[in-house]
């Protein structure tokens, strides 16, 4: 189906919902193609290629909302979806804040955000296989201790998102994505470790070279070999950019409009307060060309924008959609996020920490004893209380240098205190996904081990 057809279909679906008794309606149609190849031990292991489409409708009858979705985009499929959504909108509860954005709030960024690059679709399968193979080979060939691998892989996706609502908004955009990864396994004595490196880009041309991807993955896995557990102690903890990003995800959950109105966040009710060290500024910006968190409009048709979430340590804004904004007596921040089913949720654009002055090397150099965290596992973060306890692996810092690898330990603290105790923010900010953070140093956390 051509692009005009999908936009027309979305508009017709909204019209059909109104004719059947909806007071407002929103229709989303997503279309996507995916390709992936995995090469393991230099041989192609799997190759996948396919495309699919889904439509979703959210319908309101006054203050009651219902939604439905279908992968069947035929006239009958759409009709069934409309009937399903309306059936539900007749029996859900009246919610005084339910609705869709005001006409004045709707719109899209007109500048080209460079979300789609056609080179992703033009690359031949053989080239993609060769790249995956080269990334893995670079890791395998880097060191004799790398004797095994979970493979090298190349993935690409292209997609189109169409959105229409009953207040005359209709918009669409295409997007593309590709990635190249290597996952080597290294062994020395009884110690076996795995690590990875991945390069992601919206354009094929934007990927890091395969040799680099494999080499970085190899360096990462090699430095984990022979890891040991350390004694339980309180020490400074450094998060490298890859793990620092997860702290940013915790901050996102804590400023998420739904957590705020339910009082289910340690940051609820604290707008205008100092919640972090003065050095910390957290920005959400959905308008940066070419990045993964950018979009011309959010998932309810409101233009994406820049929002300062924390500015010099002060909590400046929550991240909101229309619903949570109304609940809180505020305005949407253009952060609506919705797949094709259910009510509208909240997502972030490009969420990042503004870089500081010090290089990672300078940060580490000042630490006598501490943990440099390269991997976090588990889900032990309680956003309601801020309690933080996760599994970690990394490198021990002694006298300003990496001394030995560490694993099977926990790091624990409370996010309230961790944000205040952020002693250094690195200068090494890089966008490798829709969250980005430089190296971060937390003055003290409990490392749980022997």
């Amino acid at each position, binding site marked *: 189906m051509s692009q005009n057809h999908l936009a027309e279909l979305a508009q017709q679906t909204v019209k059909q919902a109104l004719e059947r008794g909806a007071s407002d309606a929103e229709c989303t149609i997503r279309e996507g193609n995916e390709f992936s190849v995995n090469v393991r031990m230099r*041989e192609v292991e*799997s*190759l*996948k*290629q*396919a495309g*699919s489409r889904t439509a*979703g409708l959210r319908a309101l009858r006054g203050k009651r*909302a*219902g*939604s*439905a*979705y*279908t*992968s069947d985009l035929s006239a009958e*499929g759409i009709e*069934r979806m409309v009937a*399903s959504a309306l*059936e*539900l*909108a007749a*029996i*859900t*509860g009246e919610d005084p804040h*339910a609705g869709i954005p005001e006409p004045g709030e709707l719109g899209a960024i007109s500048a080209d955000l460079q979300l789609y690059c056609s080179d992703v679709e033009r690359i031949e399968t053989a080239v993609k296989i060769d790249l995956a193979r080269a990334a893995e080979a670079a890791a395998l060939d880097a060191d004799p201790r790398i004797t*095994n691998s*979970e493979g090298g892989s190349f993935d690409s996706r292209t997609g189109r998102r169409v959105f229409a609502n009953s207040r005359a908004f209709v918009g669409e955009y295409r997007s593309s994505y590709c990635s190249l990864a290597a996952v080597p*396994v290294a062994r020395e004595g009884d*110690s*076996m*470790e*795995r690590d990875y490196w991945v390069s992601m880009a919206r354009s094929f041309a934007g990927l890091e070279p395969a040799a680099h991807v494999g080499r970085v993955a190899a360096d990462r896995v090699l430095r984990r070999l022979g890891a040991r*557990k350390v004694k*339980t102690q309180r020490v400074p903890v450094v998060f490298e950019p890859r793990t620092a990003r997860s702290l940013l995800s915790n901050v996102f959950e804590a400023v998420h409009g739904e957590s705020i109105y*339910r*009082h*289910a966040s340690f940051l609820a009710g604290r707008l205008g307060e100092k919640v972090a060290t003065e050095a910390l500024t957290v920005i959400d910006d959905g308008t940066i060309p070419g990045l993964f968190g950018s979009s011309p409009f959010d998932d309810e048709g409101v233009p994406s924008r820049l929002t300062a979430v924390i500015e010099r340590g002060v909590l400046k804004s929550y991240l909101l959609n229309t619903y949570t904004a109304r609940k809180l007596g505020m305005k949407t921040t253009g952060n609506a996020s919705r797949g094709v*089913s*259910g*009510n509208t949720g909240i997502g972030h654009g490009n969420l990042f920490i503004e870089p500081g002055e010090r290089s990672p090397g300078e940060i580490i150099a000042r630490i006598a004893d501490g943990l440099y965290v390269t991997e976090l*596992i*588990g*889900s*032990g973060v*309680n956003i309601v*209380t801020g*309690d933080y*306890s*996760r*599994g970690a692996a990394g490198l021990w810092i002694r006298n300003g240098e990496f001394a030995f690898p560490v*694993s*099977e*330990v*926990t*790091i*624990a603290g409370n996010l309230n205190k961790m944000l205040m105790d952020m002693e250094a923010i690195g200068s090494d900010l890089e966008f490798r996904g829709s969250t980005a953070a430089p190296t971060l140093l937390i003055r003290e956390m*409990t490392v*749980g*081990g*022997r």
Partner: protein
Amino acid sequence: MSFSESFFSSRFAITRGDLESYISEALSQGGDYADLYFEYLSTSQISIDESIVKSATQGVSLGVGVRVIAGERTGYAYSDDLSPEKIRQAAHVAACIAAGPAKVEKTPLEEGRKRNLYPVLTAPHETAFLERMDLIKRADAAARGYDPRIFQVQATYADSLRHVMVATSAGVLSFDRQPLARMGVAALARQNGSAPQRGYAGGGGRVELSFFLEEKTPEHFAREAARQAIVQLDAVDAPAGETTVVLGPGWPGILLHEAVGHGLEADFNRKKVSAFSGRIGQQVASPLCTVIDDGTIRNRRGSLNVDDEGNPTQRNVLIENGILRGYLQDALSSRILRASPTGNGRRESYEHIPMPRMTNTFMLAGESDPADIIRSVPKGIYCANFGGGQVDITSGNFVFAASESYLIEDGKLTRAVRNATLIGNGPEALRYVSMVGNDLQLDEGIGICGKEGQSVPVGVGIPTLKIDRMTVGGTA
């Protein structure tokens, strides 16, 4: 039910001849094996928040996945359109993984033996929406009524009805109707202006709606969620470092899922990237431990009549008296390892390549009285409930996050402690099991397991367990 009465045959007029011709197309470039996975999935979900039913959704997705295996290579394609041209096109794309002459010998499709582990006449998905909505309204009222300190309640009910059909070049023809339902309640409590605390409980299975009316009612889950939130109000900091850990029965069985289950999936082992690779026949746990994965338990969330490759599920012994016995197999790994399939080939949907996955994973009961186990601990913690867990299968390190635990002091449970992550190493952790209770319980039916981006429903269970040494990630 015979093929002609089956869902895809009657609704989409798919014939045996069609299936055979698609498989021929899939093997047209050579290839050793091909299969087709047809799926028609209907789902619904309803949520209540602030005592208002704010969200209700229902939907349908359907499609077919075509897989071709050539040696150790897999080609995969899918279509969300069941027209013959689109299925043939997908088969053609998947076929290109192989490079050789078309495979000519054909095995006629034969229907396997039938059984029904979830004899659900009317799936919850097929009942009136208002009845299901009533469940979450009852949960909301019960959680709020439990204690005046409960100030926020969210309850969600979700169900699905999945029709699947699998046809393979090995001659397997299977179809199944898979109902699933689950409800969950989250409650927040606070007192005297203190920070709020959260509790969560939920459950379900491959059951009729009557399960929620007679066996595990909305009030049961609501009171449990509220109770957990209230308990946390007085919690103290969890200890940090190695200590004795007693796990309560049921959901804490997530320990097995992370510590050993994933590491025993055959894909990781044939690639030798698991901490358990090459250890069959070795002692990997205390002799008190016998660990089973069983996809055949009636009405359980992790059970299946046939796995997503058409093979019947079964009861598999993973660890027997501490000795590692076997791996969880799918079609590809069992071909390469020349082992029998174990009924563990699962996938999230027709868009996904199957992998070895767990079903219901649990430890057999031992002989100790749970009260004696607690009495035997001078100093340690007792964990009654958990959130999620995760494992790095290569190093074997795993974590699971305790959401309700208590200090054990001089053989008695004393104060509640705050959430903390527990960390251990798979091939080592179970060696420290020194007592196994006589009180095996399976969880209430809320498990979701994620692997390589695919989610599938699973179950876990343990009796009360004493682990002499494990690292607790607290701050005290």
